[in-house]
């Protein structure tokens, strides 16, 4: 049905399963793929969100009430203000966009800001555990918690951050919001489990990959957007818009992350590259490359465990169009996110969220 073109490449429906997800809208706002920058006056999302996010990390640290000095140090470790704060930023921008849409309110509620804090805490707790599971030794340009303090304490620190996030969540006092954000906790764990298993069949692999991507990355963004929209107004259409924006941007974000694992160099990225391959994971670029190089199938099934597999797989990917295909897919998701968010009343925050999707595509770390 809908075949899209990008720089002359025709992506046919073998990958059609992805496109079904977001080709249901009838509006044609953003189908002209030649524009990458929206021509309305845009604001740098970081500038717009800056005031709300000022003191974000200080406030998170205040939630981490620990008496043991070392445990406190561990819990505070990643809240050093050096992270991208990408998720909290989306949350505060979404909150404002929804508030303006609802009743032109320029105020942001305290509870909405709490959602941003809670989202970042849940995200960080899951990273801490992921690093133990993956035996990772660096993140964001510094050593991981488990590398410095050992696995036992690192797991405890992750548990503590999660419990503090739950306490903060309960204090908002809204049972719906608790349910929405608790779903994220469940999805994060299920996403990890999905990563444990593998699928034989090529089509199943893509679906499995996208499902894992949703659970591990997009669910947090989708549900925190939904949460602030619920706090903003009672209209379920708005909640759905917020959720879909978050979901699509989240998937795009992860797809680009998977691309960067192949294209970026380790120092710039802040963590080692080909990390996914080394963990035995077949991400977007690999799955696309496999269509051109079927000899990769065997490597995928054995999770790149034989010596030389990682290097060979990497070479195949870079020789194939895997990176381009994955990037293109990410663009489709970004366009979907933009279509959704443009259903809200115009505002600087709404446009910042559009601009944000472009930033997702253009980032290099």
């Amino acid at each position, binding site marked *: 049905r809908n075949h899209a073109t990008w720089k002359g490449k025709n992506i046919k429906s073998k990958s059609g399963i992805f496109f079904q997800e977001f080709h249901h809208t009838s509006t044609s706002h953003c189908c002209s793929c030649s524009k990458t920058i929206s021509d309305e006056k845009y604001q740098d999302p970081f500038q717009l969100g800056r005031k709300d996010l000022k003191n974000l990390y200080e406030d998170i640290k205040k939630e981490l*009430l*620990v*008496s*043991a000095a*070392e*445990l406190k140090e561990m819990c505070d470790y990643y809240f050093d203000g050096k992270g991208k704060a990408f998720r909290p930023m989306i949350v505060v921008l979404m909150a404002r966009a929804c508030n303006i849409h609802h009743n032109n309110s320029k105020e942001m509620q305290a509870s909405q800001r709490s959602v941003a804090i809670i989202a970042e805490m849940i995200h960080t707790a899951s990273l801490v*555990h992921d690093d*133990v*599971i993956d*035996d990772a030794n660096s993140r964001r340009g510094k050593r991981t918690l*488990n590398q410095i303090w*050992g*696995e*036992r*304490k690192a*797991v*405890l620190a992750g*548990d*503590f951050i*999660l*419990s*503090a996030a*739950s*306490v903060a*969540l*309960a*204090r*908002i*006092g*809204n*049972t719906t919001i*608790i*349910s929405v954000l*608790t*779903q994220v*906790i*469940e999805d*994060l*764990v*299920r996403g*990890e*489990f999905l990563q*444990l*298993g593998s699928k034989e069949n090529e089509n199943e692999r893509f679906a499995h990959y996208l499902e894992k991507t949703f659970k591990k990355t997009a669910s947090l963004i989708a549900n925190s957007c939904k949460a602030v929209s619920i706090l903003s107004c009672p209209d379920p259409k708005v909640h759905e818009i917020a959720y879909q924006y978050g979901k699509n941007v989240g998937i795009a974000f992860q797809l680009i992350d998977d691309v960067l694992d192949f294209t970026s160099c380790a120092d710039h990225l802040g963590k080692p590259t080909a990390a996914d391959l080394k963990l035995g994971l077949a991400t977007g670029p690999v799955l696309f490359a496999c269509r051109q190089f079927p000899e990769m199938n065997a490597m995928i099934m054995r999770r790149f465990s034989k010596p030389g597999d990682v290097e060979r797989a990497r070479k195949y990917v870079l020789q194939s169009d895997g990176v381009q295909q994955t990037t293109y897919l990410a663009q489709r998701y970004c366009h979907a996110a933009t279509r959704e968010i443009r259903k809200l009343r115009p505002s600087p925050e709404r446009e910042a969220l559009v601009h944000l999707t472009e930033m997702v595509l253009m980032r290099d770390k």
Partner: protein
Amino acid sequence: MWGALLRRGVRGAGGLRCLSSGGPPWSQVVSEAEKIVGYPTSFMSLRCLLSDELSNIAMQVRKLVGTKHPLLDTARGFVYDSRNNLQMRGLVVLLISKAAGPSTAELSFQHDMVSGIYSSQRSLAEITELIHTAFLVHRGIVNIGELKSCDGPLKDMQFGNKMAVLSGDFLLANACTSLAQLQNTKVVELISSAIGDLVQGIYYENSKSTENCLTDDIGISRWKEQVFLSHSALLAKSCQAAMELAKHSAEIQDMAFQYGKHMSMSHKLHSDLQPFVKESSGDTMAFSLNSAPAILHQEFRGREAWLKQIREAQGKGNIVDYKKLQEAIKAGKGVTSAIDLCRYHGNRALAALERFPPSEARDALANIVYAVTRFP
């Protein structure tokens, strides 16, 4: 210190027996309690147990057989360990729910009740067990950097860690989801804070003092604070939360908290005392130098004297002769003090129970206290 409170039992209007007069054996206490709450609590929700994730984990954990990863012991413990009172916390939450009776707060409190317990309270009992189990699993993680070649292949330990983190997280996530379904923000806050307490308690459990790896330089009050976190907070707050679910008064909530707290303390003390009160003809039971009798002994003798005794008990290669140390502790006041402390907490637990109306459930809770304060 606690001598005065010691032998004075609690005999209030409700007629609870005092501590020294025995009570039924533990297994009977548990089986009677289970009857009172309506069904055996010997397994967690089927929904959770039958999940794909857990069966996945179970299959993977089988790969750990033959390795030295602690997760294997934890897993075995679930299946075989009736001594350590599988699901005891859940049972206590159910009992106290029943003992408190139906909600008196609002006449419109129309929640379904089975065997005198609201379904939300049953869910809470299960949540408590999920959290307790999650941390049993998370306690079994090993530090990769400290492994020696005698621990076996690195790969096995890494794999075991991975399984332990994942299964613990899975259990915790299930607990969070069930908590959210209770639709009560106070309960979510209470139980979430209990998780935080538990983490801190376990952290202290693991921490070793720098100068001497065998024993901490803490007095008994600090010990009690830490043990509260690691062994009492979860049950105490769950009992309180069970009352909140039925909208009982703040006073009843506090009494439930006190029962949970003091009974757990007694339980821990009772457990710590076992190596010292059993008449064993065979090998000496190993004991932790951070257990109550040792800490109290240290408090009486002074740190220096205690460290000296440890050194004297260390033979070739710094291997500790536990039998010698046990005798040293028994010769001092550590054991009797620990027994006194155990009974003190038992009395506090019974005092809290007095505020509940007489019932089978209340008797069962009292029997639990008698069982954990009984020494040969």
